């Protein structure tokens, strides 16, 4: 159906925390989506139709996400990419199903976000998978005594912790020490890390975000005398930009990620080049990559559907196969992609910290 949408505008909504404590994620995702959209438009649009992005700030609050969702709906959005944090996203999954509009989240990893037979999809993998991959990698390195440090009140952090704990016995890993903070905004982990250092753990699983990991957890861990491996999930992406002090502290740190910036494949390098050119390297991370993919996935679904009919787009979305920056993926029956995870580490190069690809796991 070449040119079936010729001359039409295709309104895609984006709901993200554009201001407030996690505004950095909001901007990264918005950039990723807009980059993809402008590429699509530059190459003739979707079936001739022009993609237009409308972004609604959800202020990291469920109620505002609902307002944004409703506003997008009445503006006539055909699909919505949305909400970063699982806690906020879950407030609009119900409405998306009720209204029958595709909602694809780039970054919400909570298991319960997607269910079978509905309008909700995602571009990232889910927590239970990522936590399991971390455990599996640890086991493959022969680390059997693990310590955990996580943010109890944060869905991302505690979700990963739950899945790591669940997977640990399967890989013969013993959790010898568990410490927590109430949220991810904590700045001082010395107390917890001192206890962990004394526990004799060989690996520390610390599912936090890079702004905490880079300047705080890793240096504080080394300072507290913990010299073992530190492993985390996609939240570690970006740590290299906020590393401080002695960079040798960042050795022996591993994390799972959606893609590796080192990946020589054309999509990845093209994305990195285009993103850096448009928005600079500062906000370039896996979230941006996922959002970029999410936009392309929506585009692919519309193209397959050949129309802007909501149900047709949903049907095209279900079970879709897609090759993008964050890998080669197939959406499973719930709408979560089945794809491989990259294990990355940090090394010092010319006095700067950079990510290095270690292995890929499935």
């Amino acid at each position, binding site marked *: 159906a070449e040119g079936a949408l010729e001359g039409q505008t295709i309104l895609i909504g984006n709901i993200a925390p554009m*201001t*407030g*404590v996690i*505004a*950095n994620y*909001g*901007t990264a995702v918005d950039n990723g989506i807009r980059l993809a959209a402008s590429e699509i438009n530059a190459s003739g649009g979707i079936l001739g139709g022009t993609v237009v992005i409308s972004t609604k700030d959800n202020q990291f609050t469920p109620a505002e996400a609902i307002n944004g969702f409703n506003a997008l709906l009445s503006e006539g959005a055909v699909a919505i990419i949305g909400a970063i944090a699982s806690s906020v996203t879950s407030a609009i999954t119900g409405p998306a199903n009720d209204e029958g509009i595709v909602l694809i989240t780039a970054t919400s990893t909570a298991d319960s976000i997607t269910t079978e037979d509905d309008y909700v999809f995602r571009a990232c993998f889910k927590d239970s998978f990522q936590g399991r991959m971390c455990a599996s990698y640890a086991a493959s390195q022969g680390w059997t005594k693990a310590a955990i440090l996580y*943010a*109890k*009140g944060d869905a991302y952090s505690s979700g990963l912790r739950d899945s790591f704990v669940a997977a640990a016995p399967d890989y013969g890993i013993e959790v010898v020490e568990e*410490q*927590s*903070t*109430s949220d991810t*905004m904590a*700045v*001082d982990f*010395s*107390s*917890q890390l*001192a*206890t962990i250092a*004394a526990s004799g753990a060989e690996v520390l699983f610390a599912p936090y975000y890079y*702004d905490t990991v*880079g*300047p*705080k957890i890793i*240096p504080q861990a080394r*300072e*507290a*005398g913990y010299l073992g491996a530190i492993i985390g999930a996609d939240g570690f992406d970006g740590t290299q*930009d*906020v*590393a*401080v*002090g*002695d960079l040798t502290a960042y050795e022996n740190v591993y994390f799972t990620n959606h893609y590796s910036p080192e990946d020589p494949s054309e999509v990845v390098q093209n994305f990195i080049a285009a993103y850096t050119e448009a928005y600079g390297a*500062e*906000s370039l991370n896996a979230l941006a990559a996922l959002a970029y993919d999410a936009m392309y996935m929506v585009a692919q679904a519309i193209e397959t559907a050949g129309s802007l009919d909501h149900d047709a787009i949903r049907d095209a979305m279900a079970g879709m196969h897609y090759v993008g920056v964050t890998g080669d993926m197939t959406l499973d029956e719930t709408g979560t992609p089945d794809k491989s995870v990259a294990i990355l580490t940090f090394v010092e190069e010319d006095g700067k910290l950079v990510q290095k690809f270690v292995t890929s796991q499935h």
Partner: protein
Amino acid sequence: MTEFLQQVIIGLRIGSVYALIALGYTMVYGIIRLINFAHGEFIMVGGYTLFFMIPVLMGFGLPAWTSVFAAIIICAAVGVLAELLAYRPVRKKGNRMTALITAIGVSLILQNLAQAIPFIGPNPKAITQDIFQSGRIDLFGVNTNWTSIFTIIIAAFVMVGLQLFIHKTKIGRAMRAVSENKAASTLMGINVNRTIVITFIIGAGLAAVGALMYCAQYRAVMTTMGSMLGLKAFVAAVLGGIGLIPGAMLGGMLIGLIEALVTAYISSSLANALVFVVLILVLLVKPAGIMGRNVGEKV
């Protein structure tokens, strides 16, 4: 035992940062009875000043910590501007509640303005340079670092200096007089407005020093870094006895210790809640804070 001492040192270190910030809160509160909600944002302003100035000053061959002087100047300027443009006009017309709302407004403006300014933006920025001498040291078998030691010493030093300033200098006494009765202070020949401006300069300056300590320790700045930090520091000030300089110091140290020990021995995720539980318990026994004298109202 070593582990316990280790936790105590950690507590003191966290506590001294709180204490330094609490001093600024206490100063402003003490004089104009205003919970300056924007104080946390002053710290943020100080943090970003450090972030930008450290590379510049190090380029001139100066040590990194000298950037604190730039931070003090910028913070003081922001504090004075807030006072002149927002607090003073409102204070003239309104009541204390109005002033509180203005403080909330100023806090929101500063925080969001920082996010809106392109070269600051929402992304956290790391301070990659060491602000003080780096490295760990061994103190009677307890493992700590120079930054901690400097932080504790500087906090103590600032407190003593401030205490002397308030009680021994003329400006200090004027501040206390203004804090009690503005009209009577005017009759004594005190320039009330100038005294309040000076208070803001000192308070904001202390926020800059607090920012230095924070950055030396935690190595990153972010537009929202001041909120929780400021809140805890304010709690510290109340715990010790608001308006009292040694009270702020004691309160800060206590909050730090409670946090470290609760984290180590009770439950790390409940540490925040337990800090407040302790605060409430203390206030029940000593309604004016630990060092506060409960001057009953003369009927």
